């Protein structure tokens, strides 16, 4: 995230000061309402003609394992990130994610991002389109998946779904009014290397990002390990069985850019994660990210809720005259 110079901040502060507080609050509520209404609309749309699928989701919020969405299934997800901000206002960033299994080897996703910076405003910050391709047909010791994403987001985006280059806490300190004027059009590539052994999943995701403008390549990483609390399933359908809980830890951070690589001037996080997979198809995830150096946000608390709908592809096929 590009930093904002002091003079720009001054101008922004003056600009925001001119907006009456009540108007800012109203804008904030309108933003929340729109995001909530959009989420309800999506849930409503996909509920019609589709059944629920029970998922065994990974607990990771930033890292990816090699498991893709089942073909024809649509997972609707909502995630929140609450972040502390030294020298600025804390924020609550959120995104809605639609994840569709096109093939057993191809998953596609769209994201819509937004954020509320406290004592500032609520804004929409952009969208992302992500694709993941499984490279090998069968399971191996290490399973590679190629990931490519196009992002069109403003500089005010704070979901921190990945950290790369020299992304640091101070880059999120600008007021929304000024930060949203800068836009990023980025292509992001990842190689998801994941392995499953004796119930554990280990994953490492090297990241390379290129802004479509002349900015240099930026690098980052995410990695994680997770395991269900119980490996054997119980004979009865239950919500609180140990097998429904997956716990783990993920770590992510920047690795500099092509001109200045390394860990200096980067932010690094470690986050314990837990997922609760309910037999009804709902999954809840919680993670508390802790910044490992002074360039990192002290705390990033994340939580998310998702629901998987099966037979979405078939339902759409029927709508357009396909045979069921």
């Amino acid at each position, binding site marked *: 995230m590009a930093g904002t110079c002091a003079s720009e901040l001054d101008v922004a502060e003056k600009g925001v000061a001119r907006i009456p507080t009540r108007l800012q609050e109203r804008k904030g509520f309108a933003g929340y309402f729109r995001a909530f209404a959009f989420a309800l609309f999506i849930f409503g749309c996909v509920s019609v003609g589709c*059944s629920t*699928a029970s998922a*065994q989701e*990974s607990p990771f919020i930033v890292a990816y*394992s090699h*498991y*893709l969405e*089942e*073909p*024809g299934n*649509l997972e609707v997800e909502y995630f929140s990130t609450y972040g502390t901000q030294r020298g600025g206002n804390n924020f609550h960033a959120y995104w809605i994610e*639609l994840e*569709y*299994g*096109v093939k*057993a*080897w191809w998953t*596609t996703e*769209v994201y*819509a991002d937004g954020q509320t910076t406290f004592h500032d405003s609520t*804004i*929409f910050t*952009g*969208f992302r*389109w992500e694709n993941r391709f*499984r490279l090998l*047909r*069968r*399971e191996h010791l290490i399973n590679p998946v190629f990931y490519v994403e*196009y992002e*069109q987001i*403003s500089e005010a985006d704070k979901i921190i779904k990945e950290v790369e280059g020299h992304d640091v806490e101070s880059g999120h300190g600008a007021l929304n*009014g000024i930060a*949203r*004027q800068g*836009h990023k059009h980025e292509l992001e590539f990842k190689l998801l290397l994941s392995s*499953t052994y*004796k*119930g554990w999943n280990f994953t490492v995701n090297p990241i390379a990002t290129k802004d479509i403008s002349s900015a240099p390549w930026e690098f980052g990483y995410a990695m994680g390990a997770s395991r*269900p609390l119980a*490996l*054997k*399933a*119980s*004979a*009865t*359908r239950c919500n609180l069985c140990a*097998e429904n809980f997956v716990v783990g830890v993920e770590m992510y951070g920047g690795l500099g850019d092509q001109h200045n690589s390394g860990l200096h001037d980067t932010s690094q996080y470690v986050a314990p994660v837990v997922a609760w997979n309910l*037999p009804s198809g709902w999954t809840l995830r919680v993670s508390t990210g802790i910044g490992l150096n002074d360039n990192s946000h002290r705390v990033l608390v994340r939580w998310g809720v998702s629901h998987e709908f099966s*037979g*979405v*592809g*078939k*339902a*759409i*096929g029927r709508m*357009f005259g*396909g*045979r*069921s």
Partner: protein
Amino acid sequence: MRKAVFSFCPAIALAVTTFVLVLFAFSGARAGAQTDSTIQDSYYSEITKAPAKVSAKQNSFENDPEAPRAGRKLYEQHCAECHGPSGREKRKAPGLFVEQVRQAPPGALFWVITNGVVRRGMPVWSKLPEAQRWQIVTYLKSAPKVEAQ
């Protein structure tokens, strides 16, 4: 400020349209292509592709009295959507309560569940712990007994 919001709109519309087109194109194509019995037989032939060493693996849950019920629960959660709730009713994928499956070595069934048949639409299921995959195998082999209870 308002201008910045509107500058996103064409791009969002493009992304959403592309997403829907991808979804439509591939769902429509699949909807008409599931009935050929030759294709069904070739699905079952995947079982024979399991390496001999894996096929020879013993199912440690074979004598576990709870395993068929646990396997049935897992089957209904993860497999029934495609293979049908009873295992006999064909849906997106072939039914699993047929002779080809019943007579297959447990290790070979475990291998197919683990690796999927990615090219033909069955995802890998190694995300289920090994014990749960064996519980599903136990259910598949003993399903008629479970169904009769």
